[in-house]
């Protein structure tokens, strides 16, 4: 028999839990500076939030009847209620069957159409251009910025090949400029997520994945690694600051004047497993917080990917993240030593599998890279 005392006890707990579910945004306001996709910084995350809301509404059509109907049925048809009708042999009804199958099917069809549109619209590989801006109703205020990301153990390394700078533990993007990212890992698999701007994508050694995003207002979100990669996994979160373009340029100038240049040697030191502060120490820098570096090698990212694509084994002591790793053993291959087809990523027919052109210009053309062009910069 039902035990009302237990139900009564259980109810407030349930209400509390549901209430907490209902106000995530309110909870987030408390002391949190970084914004997630529930308070998006850009149109892509905003679309994701919209999808979440509308999908929730649509699915509710299917589940509300259960949430309301079950308690009603349980109460009305309890054994003691002899007034309720009892139909022990009733086991089929054509109309009910049709409703049971068709309503969820219709919802799924609607959701499918929707998700297909959304997936195509905000495909992480889709470069943000005027057509996309038109489609989604936002504005592009300047030329794209290229950011290459290398996932190292417990820190993100951001390379800005066009600006000739690199940054560890902090990513700055100019508001209104599309950001074109190539992502790889120089250790185990990681997953890059800057929630306030776009969804996540995996970073895998020897491969590149891509992510495109744009901020339409200044603010901060976090670039988190969400794929467990060892003891200091929770520390692998870098602030991503969307700032006005002037501020971005000033930051880039600052970084270019940084004392340390990112080359094969300093990269090897940087790659040692550790947090950003550990990396600072290793590079012989004072202070704390994000590290800014000069970057002279526009192909550093390609060489990091190519490390695993030379046809030579990469021994343990040359694999950052391995307990046996020693910075001295690390090497970054010359572009000329990479195997054909060395730079590739997941998925067939995606515009990523390009032959490693050996001349600079061919390589740039193949990778859609352009050298920093003074005229296109504001």
């Amino acid at each position, binding site marked *: 028999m039902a035990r009302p005392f237990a139900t009564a006890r259980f109810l407030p707990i349930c209400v509390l839990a549901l209430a907490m579910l209902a106000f995530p945004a309110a909870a987030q306001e408390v002391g949190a500076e970084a914004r997630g996709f529930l308070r998006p910084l850009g149109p892509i995350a905003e679309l994701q939030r919209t999808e979440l809301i509308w999908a929730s509404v649509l699915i509710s059509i299917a589940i509300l009847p259960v949430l309301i109907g079950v308690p009603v049925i349980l109460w009305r048809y309890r054994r003691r209620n002899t007034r309720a009708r009892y139909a022990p042999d009733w086991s089929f009804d054509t109309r009910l069957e049709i409703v049971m199958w068709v309503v969820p099917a219709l919802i799924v069809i609607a959701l499918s159409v929707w998700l297909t549109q959304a997936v195509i619209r905000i495909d992480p590989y889709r470069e943000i251009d005027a057509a996309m801006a038109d489609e989604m109703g936002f504005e592009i205020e300047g030329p794209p910025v290229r950011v290459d990301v290398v996932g190292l153990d417990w820190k993100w390394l951001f390379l800005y090949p066009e600006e000739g700078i690199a940054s560890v533990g902090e990513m700055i993007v100019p508001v209104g400029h599309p950001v074109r990212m190539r992502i790889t890992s120089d250790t185990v698999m990681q997953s890059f997520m800057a929630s306030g701007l776009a969804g996540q994508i995996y970073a895998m050694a020897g491969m590149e994945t891509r992510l495109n995003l744009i901020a339409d207002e200044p603010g901060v979100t976090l670039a988190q690694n969400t794929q467990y990669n060892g003891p200091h996994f929770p520390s692998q979160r870098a602030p991503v600051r969307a700032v006005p373009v002037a501020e971005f340029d000033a930051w880039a100038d600052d970084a270019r004047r940084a004392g340390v240049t990112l080359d094969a040697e300093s990269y090897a030191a940087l790659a040692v497993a550790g947090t950003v502060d550990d990396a600072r120490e290793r590079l012989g820098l004072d202070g704390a917080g994000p590290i800014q570096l000069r970057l002279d090698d526009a192909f550093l990212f390609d060489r990091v990917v190519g490390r695993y*694509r030379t*046809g030579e084994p990469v021994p343990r002591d040359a694999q950052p993240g391995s307990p046996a790793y020693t910075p001295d053993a690390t090497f970054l291959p010359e572009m000329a030593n990479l195997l054909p*087809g060395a730079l590739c990523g997941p998925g067939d027919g995606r515009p990523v599998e390009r032959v490693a052109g050996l001349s600079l210009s061919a390589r740039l053309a193949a990778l859609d890279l352009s050298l920093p062009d003074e005229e296109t910069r504001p």
Partner: protein
Amino acid sequence: MSAKAQNAHPGMNLGYGEGARKAEVDVFGFWVFLMTDLVTFGLVFAIFGTMVGATAGGPGPEEVTDLRSIAIQTALLLGSSFAFSWASLSMKYDRGRGRTLIFLSFAATSALGFLVMEFIDLRHLVEIGATPQRSGYLSALWALVGLHGLHVAVGLLGVGSLTGQILLYGLTDKIKSRVTRLGLYWHFLDIVWVGIFSMVYLAGVA
């Protein structure tokens, strides 16, 4: 149920009694097992497919394929299957256990020849540096060929065990059902080999 429906495995000529009923369950179970094995092989094939390009600068299909040897291996394995089917037929028509055993030994010898050839081939691969440690492609190749070879070896042990059983007990209902099942396994390995032959070796050098 009609008598016809019950004699589900005419290949064994067990009649319609308890023996046939048991064999029906056992053979069906074995088919299901072969299905799981087929899925396993299918997946290893699929992995091989994704890794054909992953030679990492090491030996590729041309280097690892010795078509002459592969042709002989194929002939040996198909011959072994052929001999096995003769063994099954002699069993079905009660031509005496001697005949069944002779054909079984043909099948086993032929399969042993296959394994020896395969072993020589693989040793050659080691000599030219095409070890599974060299590249993803070679890992997949060794895993696929090795898995098949291992199956053949286990099958050979099975033939040995069955030979002993036939010698000891004769062709009883139970043993007939075992011969039938081993036969299925044997032909199944042939089909897998056809896959390996065409996907790994022929496609590799085509």
